């Protein structure tokens, strides 16, 4: 491990300096830019996905679950070898990792943590809307959200008329049936049901019940292909939200073939299939991940890990500035860790999300900070991470 906080601060100063020489961005308002959020539920282990190289404090605490044959990203960090899709992005200079980051939640409950990773707030269950939904409202993007799941995630709430896609078998009812129900919902002031009926009517015209592949149609890799088709349309959605479950590996986390790896691979397939199927639109897209917390550095007796704090964010897409591991690395000595057991978070994950949305939605960072995150102290990382 060669990186230190001093190096990071030096590096930051340089990039700020260089940023000043960048040509002003061309007018981008005519291009449709997309945001894809992949929610990693259960607590993604940033150090399983992106291990630090040559840190004895790390290796000795994880003897049985250390990932072998990793892909070296730079002198300090490596990539889990099964993340093939992300590695392609990295090699094309469109893959970024933000390490030692987290939402500002330091308790260890999944439910509170997942509520906050979606609401963007600090008090669990207080907010009834999500940070993406609020930013979409600010950008006036009504009807531009697509959830790839059965229920509507909190993350997208805050703006009405979001759509979802989670195909099943069977046919939709005929148009007259839908029209009749629509008129009943309108008469009974059932606004939400009315909105849903409008989407269903549109869906009927597009014949998108099934998508492809029998048993695989509800799998994330298929949903990613379908979502890409929608995202690349000029009048299609601007935001898509995926969910990957199962990161809570208290036991049998395993090494390169363990249960944590299976979840990471599912995430990677989404990135890979979006990259392949977005085609030209990949250039105008940011894909990013969120999770409620990382996992303890030390493995437990069941070859698993406990709920932790700091973790990593994966980002891919043509709107990324370059391939890099962006971090203010806190170190893994006992006193450097959070409560002596977790990777510390030195970057508020919400700074990354606010910066990404500033880029994709063409909104001033300060407005997002003020109206989406209640004016809380966040860092504008747009210059460092994204093409602005």
């Amino acid at each position, binding site marked *: 491990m060669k990186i230190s906080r001093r190096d990071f601060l030096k590096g930051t100063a340089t990039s700020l300096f260089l940023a000043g020489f960048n040509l002003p961005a061309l007018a981008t308002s005519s291009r449709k830019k997309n945001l894809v959020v992949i929610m990693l*539920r259960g607590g993604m282990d940033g150090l399983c996905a992106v291990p630090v190289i040559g840190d004895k404090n790390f290796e000795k605490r994880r*003897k*049985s679950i250390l990932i072998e044959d990793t892909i070296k990203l730079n002198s300090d960090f490596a990539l889990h070898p099964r993340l093939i899709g992300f590695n392609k992005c990295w090699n094309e200079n469109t893959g970024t990792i933000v390490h030692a980051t987290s939402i500002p939640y330091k*308790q*260890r*409950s*999944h*439910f*509170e943590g*997942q509520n906050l990773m979606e609401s963007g707030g600090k008090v*669990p269950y207080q907010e009834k809307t999500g940070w993406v939904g609020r930013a979409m409202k600010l950008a006036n993007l009504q009807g531009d959200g697509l*959830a790839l799941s*059965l*229920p*509507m995630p909190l993350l997208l*709430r805050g703006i009405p008329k979001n*759509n*979802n*896609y*989670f195909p*099943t078998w*069977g046919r*939709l*009812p*005929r148009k*007259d*049936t839908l029209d*009749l*129900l629509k008129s*009943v*919902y309108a008469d*009974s002031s*059932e606004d*939400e*049901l009315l909105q*849903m*009926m409008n*989407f*269903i009517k549109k*869906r009927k015209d597009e014949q998108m019940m099934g998508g492809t592949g029998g048993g695989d149609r509800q799998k994330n890799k298929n949903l990613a292909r379908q979502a890409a088709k929608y995202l690349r349309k000029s009048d299609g959605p601007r935001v898509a939200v995926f969910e990957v*479950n199962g990161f809570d590996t*208290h*036991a049998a986390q395993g090494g390169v073939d363990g249960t944590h790896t299976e979840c990471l691979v599912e995430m990677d397939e989404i990135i890979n299939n979006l990259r392949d199927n977005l085609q030209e639109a990949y250039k105008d897209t940011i894909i990013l991940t969120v999770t409620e917390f990382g996992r303890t550095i*030390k493995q*437990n*007796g*069941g*070859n*698993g890990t*406990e*709920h932790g704090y700091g973790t990593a964010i994966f980002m891919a897409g043509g709107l990324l500035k370059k391939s890099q591991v962006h971090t203010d690395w806190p170190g893994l000595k006992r006193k450097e860790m959070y409560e002596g057991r977790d990777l510390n978070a030195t970057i508020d994950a919400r700074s990354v999300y606010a910066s990404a949305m500033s880029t994709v939605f063409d909104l001033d960072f300060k407005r997002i900070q003020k109206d989406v995150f209640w004016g809380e102290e966040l860092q504008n990382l747009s210059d460092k991470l994204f093409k602005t």
Partner: protein
Amino acid sequence: MKNFFRKVAFGLKPEEKAPSDPLTWAQKQVETIPELNWKGKHIYSEKEMRKYWITQRVEEDRTLRKKYKNDPQGLRRAEKQLENDTGAKYWPTNEICMRHAEGIRSDNPVLAKLWYFWTNHFTISDTQRLPEFSTGAYHREFIRANMDKTFETMVQEATVAWPMIMHLDNKDNIGPKSESGRQEWRRREKKPATLNENHARELMELHTISPDGGYTQEDVQELAKIMTGWRPKWTKKSDQGTDIRFMSDRHEPGKKNVLGKTYKNGRKSLKIVIKDLVNHPSCREFIATKLCRYLITDHPTKEMIAPIIKAWEQSDGHLPEVHKAAIKVAFEYNDKYKKFQNPENWWLQTINMSGASYAYPVPEKKMDKFQLGILVSENLREPNWRLENIGYHPYKAKQPNGYSDISTDWLSTELIIRRLMYAKEAFHQYKIKDQIDDTIHEKIIRTNFDNPDKILKIVAKAKSNEEKHMILFNLPEVLRA
């Protein structure tokens, strides 16, 4: 008034006469726990089901993966056969039949609706193949069977139930300073004894006092220490599938302090700390609020929960009294609030009001023909698959906090598509004679609504009986109760 029969149960069948005293009708149902309505022959205890679970887990994790390590196709075939051999595709439907028969065929649908509430409160989420083998039996034995006892009894039993210990990893919660923790082999095999806080946290957050109880991370760790050692008995061959007991050699020694109270070292402390959690004011407030949210509205008021809390305090958390109080509040607020029904309750209401409970759940006769080793037919697997596709499979919640009771979580394009499709499917559960009966919808509507004319007028616009079904069961009056 007729709305009440859907609010606390699943509506009335087309020919059913509305009870003259709805409140008493409902309250009487929660006094005792009758035998299951389901009369199929494959009803096994949670413990009996473990032997199938063990076969499945041991074979797939150890034997098959080694045997077919270079033959992925052979592995897939062998895995499918293994599922047939263990009944993995049969048991969930079998359990759902028992669960749903209570809702739509028994004399106590109100009790059933509350049973579903508690199974979600004490969720076993979709992990370690528990949905296929154990969760249904656990719901019968540890939840339903305790609905005529105190809440404390239910927590005590659910906490040390084998599926709960497994799903919240308490089997890996071992005291670092315990006898076992200090043994040499742990150092040699690099298996140090560590606390696993998962179960302790959920016991407070989800099952008893909720975050409003004001516990800290230290309280969680201390409770985890109290819980060390509660796990399946370890044997040389396999440490899985055996009964839960207290293994003192894995218990963290010393006193523990949870929420300001000190607990002694040893076996007895778990029982005492659960008693204290259950008697914490935040616990009864949490449960009363959840009951009101389930039955009445997304946003229960202080006035709503007060009588339930009072009944709790007067009866020491005796569940029949708590339930009766909740039913009474639901009765009083019957006209004021209409609760959007979750997908499972909506489906049962649809079948029940249609009068198709002879066809759903799958009749015992058909379920009884099942034999281990043989592929389970599509129609026996359908009820299991349907609940998953409808977004509410009681054995497959993604997380230990179960499914949401908030309406907006059930409003999405896809979920509404499911309701359209399954209203149609409910129609096709009918025998031909009912399908062509042009008066069937009038009967359903007159039996179940105080304002039949308005609804009849809307439904009359549909072109066929099938379409009438789709319209009727997607009207706001039916989606909410």
